[in-house]
């Protein structure tokens, strides 16, 4: 185990949760194939259902697949946290870490490491909800409590198998458990913006392709905020926004690194001095306008 180096940017961790058969692997297959321009390391329990076209593969051995787009998919073995340590020790460090929680696991127990570990950034909990079976599972006397618990910890609820729209009964039941945005996975919209965030302001990379389903907002300015003021501001963000991330100037110290996923906001001290405040946000094209976001940030 090597000691962490503060010279490297934090590794954002996104946890994908959801019961067996909900569609977690389908989601990960989509993420690995999309052209998002990020070197994503995906850790799964097993390769059983991971399905990557041969022409996208650079190499595949027992527990690691390397893709032509720079992504890597590996099995995590029995010790999830040690595997997380290995991910942090990888050089070059990946741009984003995605962990598939097992079907019955509480994804919050994994995501909590992103809040505790200084070298990780909180990339949120995305829980995949199977529209056909979730309601029955949630009332199952044996596993219902754990199924409902997954939804309660989610920052984003990704609804699968909801052909013809999310049933209102399901939507209401989920809303009672979680204020997280409910996002229908049925259309062909890219999943990378949901799981990874839209573009990477920390490195100035361009947004990976246009995503008609999503609205992107980018901001650069001279705002200087204390941690408390920033937390207050983020708590007022429009509910429809899926994600906000960026760097914010502070009156003292280096500034703040911000990650908002759904209703979760994480603020950590920035690793390098922040010269200007820069933020990006992402929401549903149908649910929010750039103007609304701008008005929130400018304080109106």
């Amino acid at each position, binding site marked *: 185990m090597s000691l962490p180096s503060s010279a490297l940017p934090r590794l954002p961790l996104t946890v994908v949760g959801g019961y067996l058969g909900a569609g977690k692997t389908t989601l990960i297959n989509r993420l690995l194939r999309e052209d998002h321009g990020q070197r994503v390391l995906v850790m799964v329990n*097993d390769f059983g259902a991971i399905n990557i076209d041969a022409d996208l593969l650079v190499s595949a051995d027992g527990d690691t697949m390397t893709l032509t787009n720079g992504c890597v998919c590996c099995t995590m073995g029995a*010790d*999830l946290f*040690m595997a997380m340590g290995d991910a942090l020790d990888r050089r070059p460090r990946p741009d984003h870490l995605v962990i598939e929680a097992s079907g019955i696991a509480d994804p919050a*127990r994994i995501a*909590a490491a992103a*809040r505790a*570990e200084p070298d990780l950034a909180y990339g949120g909990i995305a829980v995949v909800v199977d529209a056909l079976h979730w309601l029955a599972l949630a009332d199952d006397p044996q596993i219902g*409590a*754990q199924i409902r618990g997954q939804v309660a910890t989610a920052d984003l609820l990704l609804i699968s198998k909801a052909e013809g729209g999310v049933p209102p009964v399901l939507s209401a039941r989920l809303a009672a458990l979680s204020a997280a945005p409910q996002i229908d996975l049925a259309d062909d919209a890219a999943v990378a913006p949901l799981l990874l965030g839209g573009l990477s302001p920390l490195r100035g990379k361009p947004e990976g392709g246009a995503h008609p389903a999503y609205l992107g907002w980018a901001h650069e300015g001279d705002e200087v905020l204390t941690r408390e003021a920033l937390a207050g501001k983020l708590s007022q963000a429009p509910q429809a926004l899926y994600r906000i991330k960026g760097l914010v100037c502070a009156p003292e110290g280096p500034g703040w690194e911000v990650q908002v996923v759904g209703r979760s906001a994480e603020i950590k001290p920035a690793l390098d001095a922040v010269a200007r405040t820069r933020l990006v946000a992402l929401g549903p094209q149908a649910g929010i306008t750039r103007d609304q976001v701008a008005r929130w940030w400018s304080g109106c």
Partner: protein
Amino acid sequence: MADITVFKARKIITMDPNRPEATHVAVREGRILAVGDATCADAWGAVRHDDSLKDAVLMPGLVEGHAHMMAGAMWNFAYAGYHDRMDPKGTWWKGKPDLASVVRDLSDYEKTLAPGQPLLGWGLDPIFFAGERLSRKHLDQISTDRPVAIMFSNFHLMCVNSKALDMAGYDRATNAEGVVKDAHGDPTGELQEMAAMFPVMRRVGMDFRGLSQTEGAIRSYGEVCMRAGVTTVTDLYSQMEDADLATLVAVTDDPGFPARLVPVLGVAGSDPDQVAARALSLKAQSRDKLRLGAVKLMTDGSIQGWTARVKWPGYVGGQANGIWNMAPAEIHRMVDTMQRAGVQMHIHVNGDEASAVAIDAIADAARHHPWQDARHVLQHCQLMGMDQFVRCVELGICTNIFSNHIWYFGDQHAALTVGEDRACRMNAARAALDAGVHVALHSDAPVTPLGPLFTAWCAVNRQTMSGRTLGAAQCITVPEALHAITLGAAFTLKMDHEIGSIETGKRADFAILGDDPTTVDPMALKDVPVLGTVLDGRVHLG
């Protein structure tokens, strides 16, 4: 003609009803050639008499059906537990009955460390301490220059000093679940669950993977076994990778390695078909002292952590029911695939709802893929009642019962988890034997110390730490307990044709004891001295 050695003992307890006792045992090529008196092997040619064990009592080598390899290498860390405990080298570490003794003993230990080396400890159990909680303030008395991190005995919590907090960047501003804060908003040093412990463990080099599979870890486990009289031991959730096999083979092939090792592959979260293929391929690579091919399934958590799945009415006081580590549907699918492929399973079941699901899953699988001698084993079985044991008999399922819990946690179970009535019938070895199940008893080391004679004592006396008898109706006899820690456990590993009793044809695996467990006061069973073991006819003394 190979050499014949005739060992003389004060008494040999054979566990073979045809000849329960003897004074001599003859060994050739690592196997038992004959059992009887000094002349027992004379018909086979010239013999060499070995009287070095003449004052000892020999038993079949003890068999531990549920322990973990890290019981050896845990001792790389400083011991901070409540009870006196022996390390792999045979040194006794004093228990620490209060915070003052934790600080005092670890301060002494700290002086033995090289500059800058972290002080890592394990085994702390503050459930037994009255009053103040352990905090960084106590650990700062040990050192402020080097990180100090003490893992609790349940592996879910740790306490660290200010230096370690600093290395992980934990301070007032930290807002992370599991990083416990005091009334002033400062971290106390207590860290709860892996997510909060991981940043410290990473920086101080507390690597749990290194506690298994390395040569040092395997050898240290062998030493622990030898000092407990154990000649066959499981590693009951092995995380071995394919690359680890060569090390396991090299170490266990060494005639100086004193145990037969049974790594049982942990399978949580894995694809059933891939697991089955891997288990079968490993099985084909088994050797005399390395037995591969079985798998372990997790189902629920632990009763004292309120994470076991228990049947109605649940935990006393209305605590929420526990959690599944594998969903019942997954358990069914995994069990079905293993049964179809012919892979023996050991299934962790602490609560009675978990054991019910496991039994149902095996019953379903048995209907689809009959396999009468599968000998799947339920592990822990802590809340199983007569009804479930009867179903085990019907289905040919074995049970390995966690008797050590009665002494270590029995008082807590009566007071806090399942209440007096159900605590009195926990780990119901009497009911299991009466139902006719094949029974083994275990320690789950390092959760509790490896020591089958102590485990047998627990099942015989059912005494708790407070000195009371918890459920006298479930006590078993000394001969029954000795059977469970030899032939009973061997049966669960499908090795009863080779080990578990001292009879002609079996492997020459013995426990060397300083007294006779069949004649001492049953309350003194745990105090019978273990002097070492014999494995394949080779003597290993402690």
